[in-house]
């Protein structure tokens, strides 16, 4: 379905993504990892056909995305930006209903099928009770679920998310990731998202692609990708990687700048948390 071939992207003269070829597995959760400025967001935007390629191509169903009609593309692929803008005073129900936009021509009004899709999306994300509340009045975690509901109302088979956990506290982060995982398992939604947290990627992803300086460093299952050498090479972190009971890797580490004089106490404390998390 979604794949890139020798894709290079740039903002003006500044190259951001360099010669990346990868395929997104259908019905899986793919995480993009990499340091700030490694090209994760840019790559996601190009998946959605938002950036013209400098070289190479993004294909959806073997057809370059730039050849897709915008509206048809919107029926296959939904995207949630990192910091979406909440329209002034909008209620949850009306925001979620915006996801139905590509299903109607611009002169048509929403039909019952659209209302049902909206209600369904709110039920799946657990925001039905908030339907009449203004979106601004909700907590960060609730808002993020509303945005995901809007993307689900779009009824696409692919969902792209740009750092969906960045502005949330830990509990909400896990809630959002668990929601995406459920949607993936129960509805076969293909999820592609960029994340910052290696452990969360290891916990939820089927496939991880690591970017470094705009190039694809490694791609594979969490067990193949999250290794001490990779973390050291890409993130400049000295890490200890353990395998959890579910066979997924779990890591902790300290920054390279602390190499000569590691903060022993902090390091120990991290290990204690790791232990309690695994056993």
């Amino acid at each position: 379905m979604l794949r890139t071939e020798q894709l290079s992207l740039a903002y003006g003269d500044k190259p951001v993504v360099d010669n990346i070829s990868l395929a997104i597995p259908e019905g899986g959760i793919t995480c993009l990892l990499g340091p700030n400025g490694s090209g994760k967001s840019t790559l996601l935007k190009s998946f959605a056909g938002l950036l013209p390629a400098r070289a190479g191509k993004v294909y959806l169903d073997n057809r370059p995305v730039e050849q897709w009609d915008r509206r048809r593309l919107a029926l296959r692929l939904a995207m949630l930006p990192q910091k979406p803008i909440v329209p002034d005073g909008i209620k949850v129900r009306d925001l979620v209903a915006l996801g139905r936009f590509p299903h109607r021509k611009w002169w048509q009004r929403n039909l019952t099928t659209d209302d049902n899709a909206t209600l369904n999306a709110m039920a799946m994300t657990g925001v039905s009770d908030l339907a009449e509340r203004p979106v601004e009045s909700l907590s960060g975690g609730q808002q993020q679920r509303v945005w995901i509901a809007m993307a689900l109302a779009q009824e696409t088979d692919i969902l792209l998310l740009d750092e969906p956990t960045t502005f949330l506290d830990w509990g909400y982060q896990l809630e959002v990731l668990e929601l995406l995982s459920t949607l993936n398992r129960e509805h076969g939604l293909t999820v592609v998202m960029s994340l910052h947290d290696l452990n969360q990627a290891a916990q939820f992803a089927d496939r991880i692609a690591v970017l470094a300086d705009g190039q694809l460093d490694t791609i594979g299952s969490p067990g193949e990708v999250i290794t001490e050498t990779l973390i050291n090479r890409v993130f400049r972190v000295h890490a200890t990687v353990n395998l959890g009971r579910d066979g997924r890797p779990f890591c902790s580490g300290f920054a390279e700048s602390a190499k000569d004089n590691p903060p022993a106490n902090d390091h120990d404390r991290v290990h204690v948390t790791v232990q309690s998390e695994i056993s």
Partner: protein
Amino acid sequence: MTHPATTPPRSGRRWSHLPGTGPVARLLLTGGLCLVLVAVAGVQLGAVDLTWSQVWAGLTGDSSEHVQRVVFELRLPRTLTGALIGIHFALSGWLLQLLSRNPLAEAGILGISAGASLVAVIAFIIGDWMVSSADPYNNTSFALQYLPLFAMVGGLVTALAVYFLGMRHGNLSPVKMTLTGAVIAGMLHALTTGALAFWGHAHTELVAQWLAGSLYGAQWQHLRTLLPWTLIGLVGVALLIRPLDVMQLDDQHARTLGLGLNRWRAFALLIATLLAASAVGVVGPVGFVGLLIPHISRRLAGANLPVQLVLCVLLGAVLAVLADLLGRTLFTPYEVPVGVVSAILGVPFFLYLLSRQP
């Protein structure tokens, strides 16, 4: 999932209430009633106050020549023209605020009115120089017919310039657009004043009055010139309702929903400019209506764009007619231009709304 899925209540959908009972219907009825009241007052009150029966007699042509003249040739066209320019400026501001996601956007602030004024003033001066009639009032009819067109050229050029200068990395930056607009508006104002000072001696007074945004001397002719543009604007706005809903989102987000953003944004900008510039061409730049009325409508209607739109039409007309009515009755025999009164009336109300913002 942490929350169990429940069946939400079916109430609260747009337009789901019985006609005349819901809060939306009440809002629109109140707005409509206000418009009727100020329109009646606009015809009734003035230098000579008339009674209801006199107004009715004047409208049906069953009265003295004097009353008929006052009602039919002076006050009625003036009130209706006032209502139309209120609608023009309010809808223009509403579109500009939505398309740029900027609550400060308005034809005056973005320089569109200033561009329209400059070209209209230049056209007026050149027309006057070419015809060079001894009596300037004889060729105002010639000028009036074409002034909206000239004003639109000026408005469109300015709007395009502000729009493209407001882009950053291929996306519209609301802050950059507002700043650019304010700077360009200042420059165009200076040029207009300059043009007037150098070449406009003969009619400085007439043009200065026009530049303050005045309904003084508005006749049926003004209404006829304006009405086609009102209709074009209303049709355009109706076509834009659904795309505008999505335009409130982040640019790239809107694109991933399948919106041809550049095309629709250009169309919205075109309609907003046509509305504002045609009104400027007829009565001169009237500020604040375009800023205040969309805000008030949004506050009253919430995020429901169709209701916001209807409220903009009703309240825009109310504010302009009311401002003109006060402007010509409070200090008779002197007239305060409608633009000045709408600012004096609207700004305190606006500040009050802002202070109540949660």
